[in-house]
């Protein structure tokens, strides 16, 4: 009886599933949905902010979010000169990741496929590749195409250490997007895995012959599920912020003046 407690297959609810061949899966649909929602919502917000002197309601909320990203993520790290050029990119990245994370928590009518887009390591890998391209683009634009690679190694390194430090810098350049990928993927998947196991407790309650044990465990399971659901909302917010702020830090490092 207690063996049924953790017997439900949680991985089945975390993995992707095909809808029309291997190139159109549940995560694809969710990505397209989130992209459409983001574009529509922020086009509406942009038009509202540009035309109305006083904003109220949902647009004011979005404006709070946009101003917060600009003042806490972009301008502190990228300065006031480069800041306005990069704000659009960081807005897109932050709100896309945030909406992907939050959509994975909605129940069936809004999220028919019951998956989290960023719970797929390929999706987060793609986002990290975008960050890598942003870092390389920023660095090459500032220092010149070859100059960026020459300036990877900091000043003051003696000439006989140069190849080793260059290799270490290249490894760091690959490891940073890899860390971004795994951090976002693992946070999203782990939360949903815990949630799945707790739902499995409820599902296994049907097999209990002892009503007291069944009711106590189902109430406890419900309490935990509520807590973890709220915690997952917080983790989704924090992970979107961490992804964006780390990309901002790396871009600012690439653009930094050495001399």
């Amino acid at each position, binding site marked *: 009886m207690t063996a049924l407690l953790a017997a439900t297959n949680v991985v089945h609810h975390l993995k992707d599933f095909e809808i029309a061949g291997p190139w159109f899966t549940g995560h694809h649909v969710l990505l397209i949905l989130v992209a459409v929602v983001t574009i529509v919502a922020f086009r509406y917000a942009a038009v509202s902010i540009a035309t109305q002197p006083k904003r109220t309601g949902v647009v004011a909320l979005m404006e709070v979010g946009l101003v917060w990203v600009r003042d806490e993520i972009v301008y502190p790290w990228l300065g006031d000169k480069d800041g306005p050029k990069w704000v659009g990119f960081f807005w897109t990245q932050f709100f896309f990741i945030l909406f992907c994370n939050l959509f994975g928590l909605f129940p069936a009518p809004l999220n028919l496929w019951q998956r989290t887009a960023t719970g797929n390591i390929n999706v987060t890998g793609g986002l990290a590749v975008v960050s890598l391209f942003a870092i390389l683009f920023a660095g090459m634009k500032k220092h010149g195409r070859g100059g960026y690679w020459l300036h990877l190694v900091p000043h003051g390194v003696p000439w006989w250490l140069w190849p080793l430090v260059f290799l270490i810098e290249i490894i760091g350049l690959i490891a940073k997007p890899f860390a971004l990928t795994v*951090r976002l993927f*693992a946070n999203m998947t782990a939360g949903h895995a815990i949630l799945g196991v707790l739902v499995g407790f409820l599902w296994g309650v049907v097999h209990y012959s002892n009503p007291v044990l069944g009711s106590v465990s189902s109430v406890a399971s419900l309490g935990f599920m509520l807590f973890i659901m709220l915690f997952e909302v917080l983790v989704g917010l924090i992970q979107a912020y*961490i992804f964006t702020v780390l990309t901002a830090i790396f871009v600012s490092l690439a653009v930094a003046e050495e001399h």
Partner: protein
Amino acid sequence: MLCSLLAEMSLQWAFFGAAIGAGIATLGAGIGIGRIASAANESVARQPEAAGDIRGTTIITAAFIEGVCLFAVVVCMLITFK
């Protein structure tokens, strides 16, 4: 003999190792985040007007350490499901 026990049960030993690994990773994360929280509380006690900045730094660094713990959990998941 111990050698045949180790060799015949190798798949179960892999699961055992994965479970122990995930537990040890959580240990490390717990210790790290506990130290962050203690340092943060001490600094807020010294300078209550910096509480907002300290709260932000605490949350960010806690998420970093959580990320490292989850690297190990991902490795353990790879072991279990392959």
